[in-house]
C-alpha cells in the first residue's frame, strides 16, 4: 500500500507546463496533460538542472541546458547527453488536489 501525499491544488498545474513542488523533502516537477498528471524528480540526471524549468512537449520534458528529453511516464532519457533515468512517481487526483506517492514507479 503506497502512501499518497498532497503535492499541489489541481488548478495550479497548467496544461502543458511543469510546476515545481516539494513533497516530503523531494523536489518534484508536476506536469499536466489533459486529465493526466505526471510527477518526475525535478533534477536532470546529467547536470542537476531542475527539469521544471524546461519545456514540455507531449509526454516528454526537456532539460533546457543540454537538451536531454525524458519520458514523463517512465523517466527514461530519450536522447543524450543524459544516460540515466530520472525517478517518476505515481499520482492521483482527489477533490481537486494532486497527490503523489514517493515510491518511484518501477519498470
Amino acid at each position: 500500500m503506497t502512501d499518497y501525499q498532497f503535492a499541489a491544488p489541481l488548478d495550479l498545474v497548467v496544461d502543458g507546463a511543469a510546476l515545481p513542488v516539494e513533497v516530503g523533502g523531494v523536489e518534484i516537477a508536476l506536469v499536466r496533460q489533459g486529465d493526466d498528471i505526471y510527477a518526475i524528480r525535478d533534477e536532470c540526471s546529467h547536470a542537476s538542472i531542475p527539469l521544471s524549468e524546461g519545456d514540455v512537449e507531449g509526454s516528454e520534458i526537456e532539460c533546457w541546458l543540454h537538451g536531454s528529453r525524458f519520458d514523463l511516464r517512465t523517466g527514461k532519457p530519450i536522447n543524450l547527453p543524459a544516460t540515466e533515468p530520472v525517478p517518476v512517481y505515481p499520482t492521483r487526483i482527489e477533490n481537486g488536489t494532486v497527490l503523489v506517492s514517493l515510491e518511484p514507479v518501477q519498470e
Partner: protein
Amino acid sequence: MTDTLSEALELDPVESHLHPEGSFNVDDHPVPSGLEEIWRFTPLKRLRELHKDAPLGAFSLKREVETPEGVTALSVPVADSARGLSGYVPTDRVSARSWEAASEVFEITIDRSVEQAQPTIVTLRGDDVAQATAGHLLVVAKQFSKATVVINYEGTATLAENIEVVLEDGAQLTLLTLHDWQDDAVHVVTQHARVGRDASFKHVAVSLGGDVIRASTSADYVGTGGDVDLLGLYFADAGQHIEHRLFVDHTAPKTKSNVEYKGALQGQDAHTVWVGNVLIRKVAEGIETYEQNDNLVLTEGAKADSVPNLEIETGEIAGAGHASTTGRFDDEHLFYLQSRGIPEQEARTLVVRGFFNDIIRRIGVPEVEAKLREAVDEELSLTLGDAP
C-alpha cells in the same frame, strides 16, 4: 585588436581563465546558481547553505595539538594574526564568507633552520553539523626549515575553511590534510601556498569520509627554484561527493610543479571531481610541470569527473604535460594474478593496494603511510569483503 606595445607583448599580468582575481568582499561573489564553471560539479543543495548565507559561527572544532621542538602552534585573534601572508585573496563566495567570519587564526610556525623529523600533528574533531563554522589555518615555514605538519579532520561538522601556507626561501615543508570525517560532514576548504625561492612544498590531500568535500588547492612562487608536489588520494563510497580543484600558478621562472591524484569509487552515486589547472605565465620561463589524475571505478553507479587544464603564456619551458584516466578494474591484471594461483578477492585487493601505494609510498611519514594502507583495506572491505 591591441592598441599598445605592452598589450601586444602581454607584459601586463595575464588573468587565468579558470581562476580569475579574487576579492575579500563577500558581495563581489554572487550566490552561485550551479551553472558557473567553478561550481558546476558541486551539489550546492548539499552544502547546507554555506554558499549562500548560512550563519558561520566561531571555530567550534576541538583541537588536539602535538608539536615537536622548534615548532609553535597557537590560536591568535584575527587582529593579531599574520593572515594574508600567503597573498591569498578569496576566489569564491564560501572562502570570502569564511574569511569574513573567522575570529581567530590557528598559526603553526616552524622556526628558522629547524630540521624536525617528528611531525606536528593537529587533530580537529567536530560534533555539530547544524551550526556551520569558519576556520582559518596559517602554516609558516621559516627560512631553511624542514618539517612535516599533519592535519586530521575527524567527527563531523559543516566547515568553511581557509588554509594559508607560506614557505620562506629554502624551506621544505610536507603538509598532510586527512579528511577522515563521519558520513554527514560538509567541508569546503580553500588552501593557498606561497613558495619561496628554492623552497619545496609537498601537500598530500587524503579524502576518505564526509558527505561533501570540496577542496580547492593552489600554489604560486616568489622566486626561482621553487618546487611544488601536490599529491592526493581519495576513496568515495555510496552517495559521497569528493571534489578536488588544483591550481598551480607559475609566477616565477625555473620553478617546478607536479600534481598527482589517485582515487577509487564504489557504490551508488559515489561522485568524485578532479579539476587541475596550471598557468604558465609569460615570466615563467624554464619551468617544468606535470599533472595527472587516475580514477578507478570499482562498481556500477559511481561517477568520476576529471578535467585537466593548462594555460600556457610562454613556450620557453622545460616541460609541461597532463594526463587523466578513468577506468574500471583491469580484467587482465586480475587474470594474470589468478593464473598465478591467487584467489580472485585477494587479487582485487592487491591491484587496488598497488594503485594507491604509488601515492602512499611518497608521503614520507611512516605512521601515516601505515594508517592509510589500513584505511584503503577498510574501504575495500565494503565491496570486496574482508581483506585476506
